[in-house]
């Protein structure tokens, strides 16, 4: 998963629009760039990316999904976790 893909989703599907354009560290949640519906759609997209449902008790939304970099890290972390769980 690369940054460009996340940015494309945020801009084209969720219509996130910030001054100066999206960057890896642009605040999405804390700044209000993503509203409730946007966060819900982002959640559906991330669930699709990792291939499973996400337990809300395992996610700290304000930090885990606040920036493009944190979203990428979350997806990578979840995939790694699932891979190691599968090999156990």
């Amino acid at each position, binding site marked *: 998963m690369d940054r460009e893909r996340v940015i494309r989703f945020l801009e084209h599907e969720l219509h996130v629009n910030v001054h100066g354009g999206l960057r890896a560290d642009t605040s999405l949640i804390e*700044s209000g760039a993503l*509203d409730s519906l946007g966060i819900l759609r982002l959640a559906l997209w991330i669930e699709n990316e990792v291939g499973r449902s996400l337990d809300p008790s395992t996610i700290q*939304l304000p930090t885990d999904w606040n920036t493009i970099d944190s979203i990428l890290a979350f997806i990578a972390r979840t995939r790694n976790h699932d891979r190691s769980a599968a090999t156990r």
Partner: protein
Amino acid sequence: MTGVPQPGEMTLRATSSGDTARIPLRMTRYEVVPYSDEFQDTVIDISRFLSPDSLERRRAYFQWKFLDNPYVDPMIYLAKSGDRVVGMRAFSGTKWEVDGSEYMIPCATNLVVLPEHRQRGIVRQIMEVAHTDLARRGFPIAINLSARPITHIASLSMGWRGAGPLEDVRRGTISDPRPRPGIGRVQRRVQRLWRRAIGYAKRRVTGSRPPFKRFDQAVVRSPRHGIAVDRYPWADSMAGLVKRLPYDGRLRHVRDPQYLEWRYRNPLSDYRFVYRQQHGVLEGYLVIGTKAREHAPEVEAYIVDWEASSAEVRAALLEAVLDWDAFEALAVWQGCFDASVRALLARHGFETTETDISITSPRRTVLMRPLGRADRQDAWTLGGRSLLEIGNWDVRMIYSDGF
């Protein structure tokens, strides 16, 4: 600022990350003010976006929920655009106990944003003001027992957390009434119409009516020894029973006569109280609730509270209700009950309706947020108990404003 704001009209706060925080163009600045009496008609008016009920019923509901609330004055935060109220978040007063200590806790309830002001960051602005004000007033935490998926995820994004599922089990055939996210508006509408059509067809075929009509007829036709049914709470006796029963110290709403008298006057719900007495002493009660809808007779009923002095009394109450066979579906949150009660429910055909745990289709839970600093060591505890463990909560449907 006056007039309807335009996208990009005003930019907002920087975040903790300083200049790296980009500002959304759609964000609009609203003035958020606390409720005062002058807003009463407006609040009742915009609540039409939450409920199809008539103005009269919405007024009665407002009176009951906020003005007659036994604990606090209305805790409602209003977003204004110019002179116009365009959104609100309300909290109702609740009183909880844990290990013998009592706490007033605001419970998040009605959330309304006028359609033309959605997706502008209004909810976050209201909630930020609400969190600050509720903390200033000394409340330790705020909770939400009735969040639907979109409110649920919005709450999580603002630092709220869930305690784990309340375990909805039901007996009967009514499908989960909660809207599923991820499906389109048209599809939801079709599903709703389909459910309504099925319900109508069933009522035509079976001759059934809203549940308490059948229920009341069945009670008269087949009285049960030692069991009484009433339309009103025996508040003193019920509170007395709760006080007499062993208490394990979990977080639960205080059920004293004052609360019970008030709670069961909800004008948007109907209740029946099934009592078991021995020698003039109340030994158990089971309360059934339904939504008292004007236009769509409810065919689903809920066990909103249930207490008994023994397993035998508890079973007798449930079996009486099931023998009267008045409901197409009956649901209860079983998370608060021990293994023996769960087994009793399972023996009588109650099954879980929840399958997957998902952030996009969350189970009913206790959502909460500390009102002080969330990073403090004890922020997520109350009375020494962790708030994030559902096993520390004893939550009945009646504590939620959804019933």
